[in-house]
C-alpha cells in the first residue's frame, strides 16, 4: 500500500516520548521479523523500516526478515503460529488486510492466537471520481447509490480488502444493502487507477497516496477521505463531514508468537516504543508518508479484537463471510 499523506502526528509523537522515558535499557541481540507477504509490499517495507531504525538506534544487534507470501497473510500466519512459537525475539508485521483475509478465507488459524505488541502506522482511504464525473461531492455519489447502486461501479483493490470494506461501510451507513453494491475489484497497483483515468468506472477507493499525484494533476477529483478529521494539505472533507458516518484506517502493526511470556512481551513493547520515539523513525514516517498511530500492549489487543468483530460483520453483509 502506498501512502503519501501529510504527516500529522505531532500529538502522537509527544505522547510516545512520554512512554520512552519510562522504558528500561534492554537491548535485543537478534530480532527476527516475520512478514506474511512478498518483498516490496507495505508489510515488508514496514519490516525493513523497523530494521533500519532499530539498528541505527542500536536497539538491536541485527535483524533477520523472513517473507512467507500468500493470500493476504493467510498462508504465512499458520507458519508463524506453529513454527515460531518458542522464539523469544520474534515479531510478525501484519495489519487490517490480514484480519479481512483470514475471515474471507475461513482460515483455521486466528490472529487472536498471536500476542499483539503494537500498532505502528495507519493510512486512511480516499474516495475519488474521474475528472469528468457528474459527482461533485460524496453526497452526490451516495445519492446515486441510493437510487440504483448497480449503476455506480466502484473500482478498488482485491475483493474483501480494505477498499471493498470501506465501500460496504459507506453503503451500510447510507442505507444501501451492501450486497447490492457494484464493486469492481482489481488486482493491485495501477489497474484500478487506469480504469479511473480511462473513465471506465464511476468512482474508486484506495489509499490516499495512490491517488494523490493524479488529484494534484487534475485527472481525478477527491470527494472524501475516511480519516477521523480533516488532514492538513488535503483539500477534501471527511466522510463524516459529508454525512456518511464512517471512519476507517488501514493499520499496520507487530505481533509476537503465541504464548509469549509477560517478560518477553514487556521487552518487545519497550523496544517498539523506543523505536517509535526516535527521530529516525519519525523521519521514515515522513519520508514514506505513513501516519504514526502508536498503540501498544493490552490496549492494542483490545483494538485488534474490536476490528476483527467490525470487519467480520461488514464482510458478512457483503456476502464474503459465512
Amino acid at each position, binding site marked *: 500500500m502506498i501512502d503519501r499523506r501529510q504527516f500529522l502526528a505531532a500529538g502522537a509523537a509527544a505522547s510516545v516520548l512520554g512512554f520512552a522515558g519510562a522504558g528500561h535499557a534492554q537491548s535485543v541481540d537478534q530480532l527476527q521479523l516475520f512478514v506474511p507477504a512478498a518483498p516490496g509490499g507495505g508489510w515488508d517495507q514496514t519490516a525493513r523500516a523497523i530494521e533500519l531504525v532499530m539498528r541505527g538506534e542500536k536497539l538491536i544487534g541485527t535483524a533477520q526478515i523472513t517473507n512467507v507470501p500468500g493470500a493476504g497473510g493467510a498462508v504465512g500466519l499458520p507458519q508463524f503460529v506453529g513454527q515460531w512459537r518458542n522464539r523469544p525475539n520474534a515479531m510478525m508485521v501484519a495489519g487490517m488486510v490480514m484480519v479481512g483475509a483470514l475471515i474471507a478465507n475461513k482460515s483455521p488459524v486466528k490472529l487472536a492466537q498471536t500476542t499483539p505488541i503494537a500498532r505502528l502506522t495507519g493510512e486512511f482511504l480516499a474516495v475519488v471520481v474521474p475528472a469528468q464525473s457528474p459527482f461533485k461531492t460524496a453526497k452526490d455519489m451516495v445519492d446515486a447509490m441510493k437510487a440504483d447502486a448497480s449503476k455506480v461501479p466502484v473500482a478498488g483493490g482485491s475483493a474483501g480488502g480494505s477498499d471493498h470494506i470501506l465501500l460496504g461501510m459507506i453503503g451500510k451507513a447510507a442505507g444501501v444493502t451492501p450486497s447490492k453494491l457494484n464493486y469492481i475489484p482489481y488486482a493491485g*497497483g495501477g489497474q484500478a487507477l487506469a480504469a479511473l483515468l480511462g473513465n*471506465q468506472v464511476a468512482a474508486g477507493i484506495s489509499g490516499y497516496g495512490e491517488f494523490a499525484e*493524479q488529484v494534484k494533476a487534475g485527472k481525478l477529483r477527491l470527494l472524501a477521505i475516511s480519516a477521523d478529521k480533516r488532514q492538513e494539505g488535503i483539500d477534501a472533507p471527511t466522510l463524516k463531514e459529508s454525512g456518511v458516518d464512517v471512519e476507517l484506517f488501514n493499520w499496520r502493526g507487530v505481533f509476537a508468537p503465541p504464548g509469549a511470556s509477560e517478560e518477553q512481551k514487556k521487552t518487545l513493547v519497550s523496544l517498539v516504543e523506543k523505536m517509535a520515539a526516535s527521530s529516525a523513525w519519525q523521519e521514515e514516517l515522513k519520508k514514506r508518508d505513513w501516519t504514526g498511530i502508536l498503540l501498544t500492549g493490552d490496549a492494542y489487543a483490545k483494538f485488534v479484537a474490536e476490528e476483527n468483530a467490525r470487519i467480520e460483520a461488514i464482510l458478512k453483509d457483503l456476502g464474503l463471510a459465512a
Partner: protein
Amino acid sequence: MESLSSLAGGFAVALTPNNLMWCLVGTTLGTAIGVLPGLGPALTIALLLPITFKVDPTAAFILFAGIYYGAMYGGSTTSILLNTPGESATIVTAMEGNRMARSGRAGAALATSAIGSFVAGTVGTMGITFLAPVVVEFALKFGPAEYFSLMVLAFVTVSAVLGASAVRGLAALFLGFYLGMIGIDGQTGQPRFTFGILELLDGVNVIVVAVGLFAVGETLYVASRRYAGKDEIIPLRGSLYMTREEWSRSWKPWLRGTALGFPIGAMPAGGAEIPTFLSYWVEKRFSRKPEEFGTVGAIEGVAGPEAANNASAAGVLVPMLTLGLPTSATAAIMLSAFQSYGINPGPLLFQTQPALVWGLIASLYIANVVLLVLNLPLIGLWVRILKIPAPLLYAGILVFATIGTYGISQSPVDLILLYVLGGIGFVMRRYDFPTAPVIIGMILGPLAETEFRRAMSINNGDWTVFFTQPLSAALLAIAVLALLGPRLWDLATRRQHRGPEHVPGDA
C-alpha cells in the same frame, strides 16, 4: 525537438562512470536471474530495495532498469537450451527454440533471440522517448470490454499449437482453463478448487506448470524410451551464429514482434504473455516454411515472440513513467523504490524529476547495447551445454527445474505440483496431446473470465457492449477474420482437392 535535447541531457547523466557501472552490474545480474528459473526481476529488485537507503535515486533506477531488461534477455536461454522457461514471457520461446536446439541450431536460436531482444528493446525505448504520451492515451481507452475482445483475438493463437488432433488440443486447452481457475476468485473473493490447501489460495504459478509439463514431462518421456548406452549428442549444424537465410527470416519477425509487444505492454492489463502468443501465431501464418513449426523448429517462432516480450518490457515503463501507473509486478516494486526516496511518481514526474527520468531512459539504450555485447559471446559457451551426454543433461534439467521451482515460493506444495504435472506431461506426450495449449489456456482463461465479468458488472449485464464499443468490435472482427480468413482464402483460390496438410483450425 524537445525530447532529443532532454535525451541528450539524460545521456550526460547515464554516461558518468558511476552510473555506467550500475548499468553493467544491473544487466549482468539481470541476465543471471533471467537464466535461473524462479528468481524473477520483481523479486530481485524487491530484495535490493534496501540499497535505496545508500545510493542516489538515479543510480538505483539505472540498476533496477538494467535488471529488468537483463532478465528479459536471460530468460530465453534456458527456454531454448533446456526447455525450462524462467519467466512466463519466455514460455513461447521454448516451443520453437528448444526444437531448434535439438536439431542442432541452438546457436542460431540464441542469436536471433539476443539480437531480436536488442532490436525490440531499442525500438521500444525509442517508443518511450517519443511516443509515450500518445501510447498512454491509446492504452487508457482499453476497458474491460476491449480487453475481453483482445483475449478472444489471442485465443486464435491456440489454432497454431493445436497439433494434429483438434480434440486433443482442445482437451489440453481446457486442462489449462482448469489449472488457471484454481485459487481465490478475484471478483468474489471465494476460493475455487483449492481443497482446503492454503498454498493454493493464490493460484498455481504458470512457471511451475510450464516447467512441469515441458521439462519434467520431457525428461520422464526420454527416460522411458530405454535407449541404453546410446547417447545422442546433438551435432551442431552450420555456423555457430545465424546464416544469411536465418537473418533474412528473422528481421521481419523482430519488427512485427516489436509492433505487437510495445503497445500491449503499455496497456494496464496487457502484460508480456499475450503479445508473445499473438506474435507466434502471426509468424506461423506468414512463414514461408510453416512445416518447420513444431517439428525441427522455425526461427521465426523464436525471433517474433522474443522481440515481443522485450518490447512489452519497454511498454510497461510507459504508464509507469508518464502516469505513475505500475502495471506489472516489477513496475510496482520500482514505484515503491521511488517512494522510499520521497519521489512521488505521477503525471508530473517528467516535469519534477527530469534528470532522473531522462537519465533512466538513456540508461535503457545503454543497457540494450551492453546486453547484446554480453550475450552474443556467451552463446558459444551456452551451446556446449548440449554436448553433455543425454542422461546427465536430463538429470541436470531435473535438478535445475526442482531448485528453480522451490525458489519461486519456498513451498513444498509447489514441488509436489511440479512432479504431478511432470507425470501429466509425460502421459500427454505419450498419447500425443500437445502441451502448449495448457499454458495458453492457463494464462488467457482467467484473464478473459475476469475481464468478461468486469465488463458485465460495469455495464449492468448488457452483453452487447462487446459489439457497440468500436475498439472492442474491431478486435472481435479481426479475430473472426484471423480464424476464418485463411480458410476462406484457401477455398477460393484452390478449389482442387488437397490433403489435410494444414493444421486444423476448426475449433
